[in-house]
């Protein structure tokens, strides 16, 4: 898919929020890939961690929010510790989760969950599922 880049596209409110929440300079990243290489969970992710930053640099936040990556991230901060440019990717992941949750979309409605499942499902997982549902 082609990406149309323009200053409006890059001047994205959500991106500004991510920078505000995480305190990270997204543009400092030079795409060396050390975060992805060191990430213990990257093999389970739809898109690797370094690509999350690349897409953010292009203002393509929607492309990230529909992936499981931000939910697979375990916040182990291995990436942040190793990053040569001091970009704290674990904080960016947290910011992305915040942005996602603040959209207030319920993916699972409690009334529609079948009774049998309600019996077995741990409560914490159920509540997490309402908004973090990752397909």
């Amino acid at each position, binding site marked *: *898919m082609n990406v149309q880049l*323009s200053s409006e596209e890059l001047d994205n409110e959500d991106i500004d929020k991510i920078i505000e929440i995480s305190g990270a300079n997204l*543009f400092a990243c030079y*795409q060396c890939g050390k975060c992805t290489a060191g990430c213990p969970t990257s093999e389970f992710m739809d898109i690797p961690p370094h690509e999350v930053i690349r897409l953010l640099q*292009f203002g393509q936040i929607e492309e990230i929010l529909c992936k499981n990556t931000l939910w697979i991230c375990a916040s182990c901060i291995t990436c942040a510790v190793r990053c040569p440019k001091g970009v704290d990717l674990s904080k960016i992941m947290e910011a992305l989760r915040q942005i996602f949750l603040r959209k207030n979309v319920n993916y699972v409605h409690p009334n529609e969950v079948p009774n049998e499942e309600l019996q077995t499902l741990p409560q914490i997982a159920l509540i997490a599922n309402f908004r973090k549902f990752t397909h």
Partner: protein
Amino acid sequence: MKNPEHMNRIGVFVCHCGINIASIVDIEAVTKEISKYPGVEFIKDYQYMCSEPGQMIFKEACRSGQIDGIVVASCSPTLHETTFRRASIEAGMNPYRVEIANIREQCSWVHHDEEEKATEKAIDIMKSVIERSRRNESLTEVSLQTIKKVLVIGAGISGMQVALNIANSGVETFLLDRQPSIGGRMAQLSETFPTLDCSQCILTPRMVEVGQNKNITLMTYSEVEEVSGYVGNFNVKIRRKAAYVDWDKCTGCGICYQKCPKTVPSEFEQLIGKRKAIYTPFPQAVPNKVVIDNNNCLYFKTGKCRLCEKACPLGAIDFEQKERIEEIEVGAIVVATGYDLYEKEKIEEYKMGYCEDVLDGLTFERLLSSSGPTQGKLVRPSDGTVPKEIVFIQCVGSRDPDNHLPYCSRICCMYTAKHTMLYKHRVPDGQPYVFYMDIRSGGKNYEEFVQRAIEEDNVLYIRGRVARLYREDDKVVVVGADTLSGKTIVIRADMVVLAMAMRPSGGIEELSKKLKIQVDGNGFLSEAHPKLRPVETLTQGVFVAGCAQAPKDITDTVSQAGAAASKVLELLSNEKLLHDPITSWIDEELCAGCGQCVSQCSYNAIQLDEKKRKAFINEILCQGCGACIVTCPSGAAQQKNFTIKQYYSMIESLV
């Protein structure tokens, strides 16, 4: 020339070169075999003959008076021939009695898997060299006077720096440029990386210094017509182009160009600014003299006008002026002819997008320059609006061996980063994009500079080559890929800046022929050795500096210019130069005076004595290349210590 006495007391030294030779060639077998060879008086092997103890052994044997010819079996003569010849001088022997038998590069290294054969071959090589050395003559170097003057071709930052360094050491220097002013490319630049100081502010004091230096003679608006002679004694004919202005009278007051009715695009402004038909390239020109461009001057075109002549208060205009040839004699020449940009018309896939707002890097420099056509205001040449989306494309023509040029132009990564910063400083709400393949920022504070552009000025770097440009309304659409994310990127840009590849400046090939120096496959001047002789050429007395040799930035250019100046001073510090005596000579009894050798000689070293009908060789000019020897149908041309007899005896020893 008398037949050399046969030497029959040869000393042979066999070097092990650690394990380089000794692990393949059986040194013991070699010494045993060679010691039996006729004429070998003395043989000795040692671990490293080139080491101090090795040379001690060598010198002792020389001093013993036991031997009158020497063969050192070791590495290539290009490496240690000089070492042993110098050692033989110290020990009181003629250096041209020392020969090297190469049993490393031509034997042990290439036959590392066949030790027995290698040993045999080593013995054969040594036997043949012993045969050759038997008929070696004692030769003396030819000495010649040097002229303590220097010609520097090209007066950009490189040539200026060379000239200043030499002139400040008290040596008279001619500084030549084909433009009316010195300054070169650097005078066109706006600001310089990585410090962002204004290019003209740091350059013009140097230009003034050059102009004021008593040891520098400026020869601007001139070209090299012909070069003859040799190291220490060059004769150069210089074409002083007709300026149609008497420069002795002209003070550069500028009244003439205010009056001139003809306006044309200025080359100095990369054609986005204007000049008159009578002009100085830029206000700070050195020398501050005007020239008339006779291709555009109304008087030359139509026979009418002469307004400048009427306006000039000093009567300096001279429409009758003719170009003239001036001859100078110098001891050394430095070539610092700089660079041009690769033509953007050659990039077919970008042509659809070409318009006034697609610029090359140098044109963008003029647009940024506070002394440029817009006084540093960044606007589109097409409609004068401020470009909000600006795309910079790197490696245009560079690193493209299949379609354009194979090499990296080296400065584009840095100047593009500089361009983006300067753009952001002028248009804070604009968005710069850079398409790059790699960022090559290997220099002091260079990487930090690029990172600053990315982090502080939010320049978006996109990794990939742009595949095409095309026009849409008043925009240029840029289509490239970002290989980091795997996405195709489309940007509707207001302006596009192409970092065109660097090429050696026009005319370098003709100049290199005149100077008998070589150019490499890309047209840049070849240095004598890429690492150890970076500013010399293979023609003695001719040196290179700056972008004429390879693409480089100002920092490297100035360093290289300093190096070239020091090599020139080293050369001229000798009262006399010594010339290798391995030259050709003519056996007059055999010479039929056919003159074939004369036409073959690349160094003009052979002349035909018309009266005697014999060829005659100038030993100082002869480089010992051997072209005359193979040409001569009667075998009259011979090379000292490389005679046909020597070759025959070498062959005989092998068969």
